[in-house]
């Protein structure tokens, strides 16, 4: 009997101890859950950020490559005076542009960029470069940057807003430079705690336009 009573001599857990133990375990589980959820969100946010950054780089590369060979549109039917004017004013503020002119300059407005560009793979023995019309604008419904050319549309979903502005080159006020400011949606899923949007700014220029402006006596191509 003494042996059987040995177990009863061990003291059990009191209600207070049990309650404290349960509270401690609950607190520990709560802290662990909080830490894990914070890390999961940070991981998700980080991955979204990097994806959006990649999208921003993709958009800037497109803009730079397109605008590098931007040119005013000058039809063969244009008079010499119209052609000369198009070379003198290759880029204009879209608000100041009057429709009806034969030539079409590069049009810049804060939310839209419209121009013609020389196509890279112009066939040999072609007297004039092949031109292609390109347009960049923000689609208000989809809230992203859209590039349109030759009836094809390319959306840049991470670019929530864009601003196009012209400024004069610091060494020559008549040389146009295009300032582009992209607002990148840093947290597309809106899961992070108030992640600010990213702003990326850069300057683009057209080698075709600058060449025509700087070397007026040569290198002019009349379409």
């Amino acid at each position, binding site marked *: 009997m003494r042996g059987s009573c040995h177990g009863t001599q061990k003291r059990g857990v009191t209600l207070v101890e049990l309650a404290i133990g349960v509270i401690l375990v609950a607190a520990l589980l709560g802290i662990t859950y909080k830490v894990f959820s914070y890390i999961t969100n940070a991981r998700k946010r980080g991955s979204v950020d990097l994806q959006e950054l990649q999208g921003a*780089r993709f958009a800037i590369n497109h803009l730079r490559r397109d605008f590098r060979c931007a040119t005013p549109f000058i039809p063969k039917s244009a008079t010499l005076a119209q052609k000369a004017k198009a070379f003198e004013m290759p880029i204009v503020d879209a608000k100041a542009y009057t429709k009806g002119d034969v030539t079409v300059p590069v049009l810049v407005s804060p939310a839209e960029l419209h121009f013609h560009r020389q196509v890279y793979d112009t066939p040999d023995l072609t007297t004039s470069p092949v031109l292609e019309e390109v347009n960049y604008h923000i689609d208000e419904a989809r809230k992203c940057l859209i590039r349109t050319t030759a009836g094809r549309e390319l959306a840049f979903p991470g670019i929530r807003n864009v601003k196009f502005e012209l*400024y004069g*080159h610091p060494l020559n006020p008549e040389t146009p430079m295009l*300032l582009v400011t992209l607002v990148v949606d840093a947290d597309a899923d809106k899961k992070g705690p108030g992640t600010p949007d990213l702003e990326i700014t*850069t300057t*683009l220029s057209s080698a075709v336009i600058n060449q025509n402006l700087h070397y007026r006596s040569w290198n002019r191509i009349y379409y």
Partner: protein
Amino acid sequence: MRRFSDRMGFTFVEIVIATGVALVFFAGLIHFASATGSETSRAENYLRALQIAQETIELVQSMPVGELTDAKLQIFEGSLVDSQTRQSVALPVHPESAWKPVTKKYPEQYTKAYFYRKLRLEPLEGEAANGRFLRKLIVEVFWNEGRVPDKIDAIGGTPDRMRKLALATVLFDEREYY
């Protein structure tokens, strides 16, 4: 007294070990989370530095090589954060141009990286075929990751920054005769 001595509790060593294990566990998790954030920040700064270098190349390419003297190229050099105000510097816009952009400075988000830009134009004569027609342009962009530099300006010297990106291209000097 007997009742207390019979009770089984945690020893001091057990508590210390348990606390140590918990600390290591949570420290690892927090480090993992913060490393993710800094990776993203590094990628942002790299993309911005790349754009600063590319736009500098475009600004130089937009002028005839004959007009690019060392004195004129100086306007593109320096910190993109003002050492006095600690705010972004003004964009290199010609004051007499007919185009007046609303944006006057680099975005304030750029100030945290303390970007610094240097460039040089070197002759290629003797180094490459037809080198006398060519000039080599090298643009270097320096920046910091989450640290304020001791010296924001570095006139003529190496900037006090943690990271560096360099882009180079070749310009055609159209003044040379064939």
